[in-house]
């Protein structure tokens, strides 16, 4: 059986990692600080030629925002917060949700109905609305809550939004695997629940959990973008007047926040909103490439597993092959006569 190579996944992960490293290194070795706004453009008589936002040019590839800050440096700075938040939330969802799902389905399936009843609002109310309800009071701009506390609370809320889906997906999957003939046979032969879980259920669950993690990454990114439209940026917002107009700005410059805060520039300066949205689109496409390759490989493996023999079986036959001699065979006629 041909083993999957995951070539596209490796390339996508490498690109994501390179972007993340560039974003982290920006703080240490990056060119000029994006926070120092560019001056107005003057002609030789000292009259103002143009006001920010400046369109893309040779010096500023992605142009500047409404405060005259370089868009490229801004998105480079914010990228690490986006990737970190999304990675932490998705990992926590899958780790905690799957673990509790496995435990519940294996040892206490009766409480599933109560967990479902408890999280019923998460099942029917759009998650974006739930997130707005939970975050609004805390991310309110005029309170004294420190930024780090706000971020931690937002990460907990984002975790909570996806937890029920992961939990029920895992319980359903464990239930489905538990009905397979090899699992029931193992149970009939006296295998303990822990043994069955470790040896037969977990190996089948692993690829699904990896896929689930990738799907959670996409979902978390989508919710972050939706929240930004409600001005619930990661870490909150500030309305510091940098140039001549004050407007709600993301404190962390996280990509979804930048996209949400610059929505109103679409009409006059589309490059401002599309610079952060473009980078988000790149991240989305890279993650979708990973997701599609995982699904394709899982499908291929399912198809092939029906046609091939397990490796150990083939080895056994090969070892036996050396011992097979004609003397060990009994001709049929003789066998019939013996009977």
């Amino acid at each position: 059986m041909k083993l999957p190579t995951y070539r596209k996944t490796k390339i996508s992960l490498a690109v994501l990692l390179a972007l993340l490293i560039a974003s982290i290194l920006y703080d240490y070795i990056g060119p000029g600080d994006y926070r120092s706004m560019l001056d107005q453009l003057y002609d030789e008589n000292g009259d103002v030629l143009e006001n920010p936002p400046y369109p893309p040019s040779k010096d500023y590839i992605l142009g500047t925002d409404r405060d005259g800050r370089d868009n490229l440096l801004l998105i480079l700075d914010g990228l690490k917060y986006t990737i970190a938040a999304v990675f932490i939330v998705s990992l926590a969802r899958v780790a905690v949700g799957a673990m509790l799902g496995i435990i519940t389905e294996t040892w206490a399936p009766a409480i599933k109905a109560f967990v479902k009843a408890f999280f019923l609002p998460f099942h029917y109310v759009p998650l974006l609305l739930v997130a707005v309800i939970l975050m609004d009071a805390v991310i309110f701009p005029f309170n004294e809550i420190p930024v780090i506390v706000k971020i931690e609370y937002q990460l907990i809320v984002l975790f909570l939004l996806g937890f029920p889906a992961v939990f029920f997906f895992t319980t359903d999957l464990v239930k489905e695997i538990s009905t397979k003939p090899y699992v029931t046979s193992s149970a009939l032969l006296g295998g303990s629940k822990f043994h069955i879980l470790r040896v037969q259920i977990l190996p089948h669950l692993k690829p699904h959990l990896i896929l689930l993690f990738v799907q959670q990454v996409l979902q978390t990114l989508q919710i972050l973008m939706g929240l930004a439209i409600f001005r619930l940026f990661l870490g909150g917002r500030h309305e510091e007047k940098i140039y001549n107009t004050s407007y709600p700005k993301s404190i962390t410059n996280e990509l979804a926040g930048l996209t949400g805060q610059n929505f109103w520039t679409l009409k006059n300066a589309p490059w401002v909103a599309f610079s952060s949205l473009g980078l988000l689109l790149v991240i989305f496409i890279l993650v979708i490439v990973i997701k599609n390759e995982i699904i394709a490989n899982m499908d291929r493996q399912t198809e092939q597993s029906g046609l091939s023999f397990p490796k150990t079986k083939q080895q056994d036959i090969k070892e036996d092959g050396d011992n097979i001699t004609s003397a060990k065979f009994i001709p049929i006629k003789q066998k019939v006569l013996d009977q």
Partner: protein
Amino acid sequence: MINGLWILKNVFTKALYILALIGTFLLGISFLLSFTAIFNFDRKPGEHLAISFDGVQLRLQTIFTQLMDFSFKDVFDYVKNPNVLDGFMNSYKVLGISLVAIIMLGCMIGFLVILLPIKLRRRFHQFLDYFEGLPDLLFIFIINMLNIYLLKEFNFKVFSMYGFGSSQPVAFPVIVTSFLPAVLFGLYLIKCMEEEEQAHYVQLGYSKGLSRPYLYSVYMLRNILPVLSLKFRVILYMMLSNLILIEHMYHYNITLTNQIIEQVFRGQHVLPLIYGIGILIFPVILLEYLIKLIVKETVIRKRGEFQL
């Protein structure tokens, strides 16, 4: 006598079980609405978020007391409020038209791709796979940008987008609400049909000389309905999320989203918020169950193969 007692015990146990489930459900709602009370936000710079159960009991008590004020008369009074009624009509006008658009456009995409030659179909399928996971906001921005571009370059206004004042656009929210769900519906249709293609009756149909469009639209469509109806739930809720986003983004005033957001921002009592959310999602839940019921009655009862 023993039989009677046994039945009575069973009924009693079941009633207790249902009561416990309802209690858990109410606890879930209270937990959701008092979630912030679990944490201590009174922290100094440099400190981290802490858990504190001091205010939780009081908050839960308040919410439970407010939930006890529930009455159907209140719900009718809330619905009779002209703002809520008009908001419902406006939101569901957009959702209704979007739903029709999604089914029509999705079926068109699905059938066009599935009837293509295999190689070309695979390419299109791979392309459409990328849409599963892309954010709605991306398409909203692109459609918005296209509209602005046409207006700027050709002075041609395709549709009005913003809802300042009393204007309540329909075309724009319908387009942005239905675009991505329609593509996904088409994709689900293709996936379901490709799985169904392996069935023996399809091979038999080919061998008997039935045309592909006839086989797909008459036999296969009917048989994939149970699976498709399960996936349709995703489409319904995606549509609802898109609508909330659009109504807030473009400042549509008389909408259910606006009513709910107002309650989130300024509401003192939890019931108007719950009523608002209930009115927003109730028709969608009803439609979801209606689809399941129709599929169960029309397809599964005859075939008896799929379990919903």
